């Protein structure tokens, strides 16, 4: 139908929509999900950015459910995890890293307060897995196996669950009611626990309970000793025993003046515990310098605040009665301590050795194919399986950094591979997504918001009681903290791409559905990619 046209006009008016400018394009924008550096760093493989996304919206229950898909212990993690994620956080390059650990703790505490429970397994597989050791790694494996639908029996040598979380980490860092509550939630999933039972022969125990596979996570509880020439009168203890006895009826007798030998986190835990037990002086003797100390600096800092002292570059060469002989050290060119021949003495009521721990491998004797090297059981790093098919191991007894989070990660990895093994499959290794580095972001769009500090118990209370040192965030501050997340590499629907396109070639799909490029009109200018705050758009060359 043609209109009556004015003079000299021969064509009907049309819309420019007829002009498909997409034909100009040499590059196209593609939405991607990059791996946020926090997730890449987490030893337990948490989807940190993923659960923060829910927390930002105030949906803490969804955030918690998202979090526990990878790790069943947010309240514990929020207290004892060394949160290496925060060291990797891109926000650290803007103002200060997001307080991931404090939000995790808030979610964990909120879950305990509200009584949130894990989703029950969707089906029962009919398979049975034996877990030896109810420490973080064993509990993590038990949890994941149970959620998949396997029957799980946990055998623990101690009288209570938790392993090093109970017998190694002092109460002022991890209150026991928190530990008990998070373990109880795993038990409520239908995991069977047996305490006070030491597995002497793993294959016999498996046969006894009728297990199809087993996960070993007995930890490392035998204290390493150093040879110190000592007379009978010297009062020498080991750190594992001291911390373990804190869980018993009678606290250890350490005296007024306590020397701790070693430079790890355990040494610091013992020194801080000694202060709380009434020691007027707690002195850590360490061979190297502060820079080379394996303990985390924030823990050392807290210990120093509480009056713990450190003698750097010192070794203990002898003990007689209440007197220690100490030799000064110097670091050589390679940073190793070398003796100087200069000696001094130090009076003490007791000496606690915190020189590391060994694994008790007696339960593994006679298992064919098993390899023990460097004091730990060797496992396939991708699956945690030992040389004996169906027998998996992790935590402190397997190779890796020894901490709670790594142990939890081992437990998860083992659980998923045990499940695959029980189905006669091998899990295909996941191709890691590229990490969203800071230079992939456009930080202009994030406003300035310094990190929220958690309240700390004042010093007087800290040195006289075992009350928890680190406080938690309130709901308002947790929300604030969650919203500091930059959402690195993952679209958070800020509408920037939709707004900045000069060609209206970005289609907004609605809440939760993100966006799509209209390739009919996209000219490939790349503004959407360069103005995406979080680096979730990539420009890709058109073919041909």
């Amino acid at each position: 139908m043609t209109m009556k046209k004015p003079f000299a006009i021969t064509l009907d008016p049309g819309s420019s929509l007829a002009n498909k400018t997409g034909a100009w394009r040499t590059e196209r924008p593609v939405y991607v999900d990059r791996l946020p550096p926090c997730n890449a760093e987490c030893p337990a493989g948490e989807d940190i950015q993923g659960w923060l996304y829910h927390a930002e919206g105030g949906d803490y229950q969804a955030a918690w459910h998202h979090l526990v898909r990878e790790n069943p212990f947010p309240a514990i993690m929020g207290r004892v995890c060394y949160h290496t994620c925060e060291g990797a956080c891109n926000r650290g390059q803007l103002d200060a890293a997001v307080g991931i650990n404090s939000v995790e703790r808030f979610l964990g505490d909120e879950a305990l307060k509200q009584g949130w429970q894990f989703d029950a397994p969707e089906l029962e597989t009919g398979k049975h897995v034996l877990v030896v050791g109810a420490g973080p790694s064993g509990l993590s494996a038990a949890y994941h196996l149970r959620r998949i639908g396997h029957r799980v029996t946990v055998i623990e040598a101690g009288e209570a669950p938790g392993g090093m979380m109970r017998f190694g980490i002092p109460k002022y860092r991890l209150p026991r009611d928190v530990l008990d509550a998070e373990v109880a939630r795993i038990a409520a999933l239908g995991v069977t626990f047996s305490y006070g039972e030491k597995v002497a022969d793993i294959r016999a125990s498996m046969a006894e309970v009728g297990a199809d596979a087993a996960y070993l996570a007995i930890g490392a509880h035998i204290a390493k000793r150093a040879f110190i020439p000592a007379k009978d009168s010297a009062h020498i203890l080991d750190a594992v025993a001291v911390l373990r006895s804190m869980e018993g009826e009678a606290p250890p007798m350490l005296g007024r003046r306590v020397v701790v030998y070693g430079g790890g986190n355990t040494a610091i835990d013992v020194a801080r515990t000694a202060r709380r037990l009434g020691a007027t002086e707690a002195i850590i003797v360490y061979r190297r310098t502060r820079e080379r100390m394996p303990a985390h600096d924030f823990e050392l800092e807290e210990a120093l605040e509480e009056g713990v002292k450190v003698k750097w570059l010192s070794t203990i060469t002898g003990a007689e009665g209440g007197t220690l002989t100490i030799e000064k050290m110097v670091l050589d060119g390679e940073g190793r301590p070398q003796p100087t021949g200069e000696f001094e003495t130090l009076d003490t009521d007791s000496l606690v050795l915190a020189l590391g721990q060994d694994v008790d491998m007696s339960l593994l004797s006679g298992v064919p194919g098993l390899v023990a090297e460097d004091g730990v059981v060797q496992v396939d790093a991708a699956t945690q399986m030992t040389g004996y098919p169906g027998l998996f191991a992790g935590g402190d007894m397997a190779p890796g950094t020894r901490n709670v989070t790594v142990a939890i990660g081992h437990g998860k990895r083992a659980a998923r591979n045990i499940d695959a093994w029980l189905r006669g499959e091998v899990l295909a290794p996941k191709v890691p997504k590229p990490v969203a580095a800071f230079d992939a972001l456009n930080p202009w769009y994030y406003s300035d918001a310094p990190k929220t500090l958690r309240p700390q118990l004042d010093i007087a209370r800290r040195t006289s009681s075992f009350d928890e040192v680190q406080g938690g965030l309130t709901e308002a501050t947790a929300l604030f903290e969650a919203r500091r997340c930059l959402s690195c590499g993952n679209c958070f629907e800020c509408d920037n791409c939709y707004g900045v396109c000069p060609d209206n070639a970005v289609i907004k799909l609605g809440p939760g559905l993100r966006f799509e490029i209209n390739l009919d009109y996209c000219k490939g200018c790349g503004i959407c990619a360069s103005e995406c705050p979080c680096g979730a758009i990539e420009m890709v060359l058109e073919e041909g």
Partner: protein
Amino acid sequence: MTQPIKFYQTGTFTVGNRLLPEDLRTVQSSEARDNSLNSGHRACQGCGEALGARYVVDAAMRATGGQLIAANATGCLEVFSTPYPETSWQLPWLHSLFGNAAAVGSGIAAALKVKAQKAGQAQSTIRVIAQGGDGGTTDIGFGCLSGMFERNDDVLYICYDNEGYMNTGVQRSSATPPAARTATTQPLGPEPGAEFGKGKNVPLIAVAHEIPYVATATVADLHDLEAKVEKAMSMHGARYLQVFVPCPLGWGAASCDTIRLARLARETGLFPVFEAENGEITAVTKIRRPVPVDDYLRLQKRFAHLFGPKGHPETIARIQAMADKNIKRFGLMAEEGAA
């Protein structure tokens, strides 16, 4: 421990945010925006003017409930949006000549006024904008524009400032900055590119007319731009808005850098963003992350002759001095300690 909760992840600077209440999101974040300048227009990849025009006209459409007529000067904006017989415009839109957009706007406003009076209304509910590039505004259409100001005609005039005649092949306009290379200001001789001490500052000339409202804005700050359009449309009489719109083709910049360049123009102080009412400057947008002019100039081939082995550091210093003068004159630097 009591802190007000803000939307730190996004809120203040992004187009929208799922966590923001609807009324704090921009017009551009809405699926219901008008797309007044529709897809299929023939502007270059990454065109700042196409982007700026949609930002402004969509905001004006929202502010007037769609009761809007536009007059358009000759220039890129007209050429790329209306090749016969197609149009990208989704509102009543008129093009007459290069230099008379302001006069056409005045005429439409006068006609609407008469029609309203004949219908027994005090004033028309239909509003008028006139728009053009810097060539059609600061040079060719300047007489009509000054007349529109002087008569206080009820028109919002928008100048999309890309600092040159881009449509005809990148010639110098009176908005072209010193030292910039254009087809008519070649990088030759001791003072290459456009000369220092020439050109005109039309926003300040508009302020001198003491019209109800004058503002500058950039395509890099959408919240600010939309607020200014909305404010302008809430007023009557002559109003002027100059929007800084980088031109990838004419400036020799990457098409993906359009918004970045607009941001840098503001953050260096080279393009002061301010508002004035009735002849008085009433507000300035402070610089958030101060940067030297180098960061801005280096991204553009029109300034390439200032860099490299035979560079002109003294020329860059003169441009920096211009930025510093703006910062001082308009008070662009945030107070110490302010966010």
